[in-house]
């Protein structure tokens, strides 16, 4: 890879992808957990997750859990490959 992934490179999206990639077995993370990890506002977090979903890097699931609406995001196979390639590119810059 000789260029950064422009979708992942944005700071908040990078944090979201890092958190999702760090989940054992690439399990889904709840929106509120992602908010706690990134410290982002609801609106900004929602926008960036949508961008990642449109790129095919994350899968978003909306359902009800204990009678409450729940939104979860899960990194996709394409997202794992893109994130790993982006990290490899960053490391290559450092030699």
């Amino acid at each position, binding site marked *: 890879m000789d260029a*950064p992934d422009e979708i992942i*490179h944005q*700071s908040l999206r*990078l*944090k*979201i992808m*890092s*958190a999702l990639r*760090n*989940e*054992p*077995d690439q*399990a889904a*993370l709840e929106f509120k*957990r992602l908010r*706690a*990890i*990134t410290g982002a506002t609801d609106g900004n977090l929602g926008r960036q997750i949508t961008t990642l979903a449109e790129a095919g890097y994350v899968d978003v699931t909306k359902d009800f859990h204990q009678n409450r609406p729940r939104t979860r995001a899960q990194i996709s196979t394409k997202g794992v490959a893109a994130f790993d390639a982006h*990290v490899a590119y*960053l*490391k290559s*810059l*450092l030699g």
Partner: protein
Amino acid sequence: MDQKEALRALDDIQGAKERSSALRGYAAGGIYMIVWGCVWIVGGASGLLSPEIGRSGWNVAVLAGIVASIAIGFRSPGAGGKDVMGKVMLTMGTMAAVSVAISVVLNIGSLREATALQTILVAGAYMAFGIWRGARIFVLGLALGAVALVAWFFLADKFEMVVGIAGGVILILSGILLRRA
């Protein structure tokens, strides 16, 4: 993109990973804290009836806590079955062995001393675990240890009750908070 920017991005990645791991640890550890909070309350409250009942109350409560912890370890998602059970058993066994060894060496005979020892050991274990898995667990251990020491020096005649109930409430509330993390 230059090296400085790459370094900052890698720092962001590492920070997000650490935060994510800490929050996962909080959520997974919360249920164990709730269980052991109940153990503390039952053990402490049973001591109010009589020293003999208190001694067997603690034993029964601790045994129930161990069984519940093993069952939770088995049922947790991605638990890994025998591996987790082995680690839980080993952790419990180590704590029990250390507790018995200290009791023998220091010739601990009274319920009050035994309760203090158990409480301080558990508080120390949480603090040590918290250093690796998240500051909130460390703070919880510190709070539990502080309750034990304050009760030991200033509330000697109500020690078991204070440690049992206050420690149990701290554990349960913290467990609930951690599970919401």
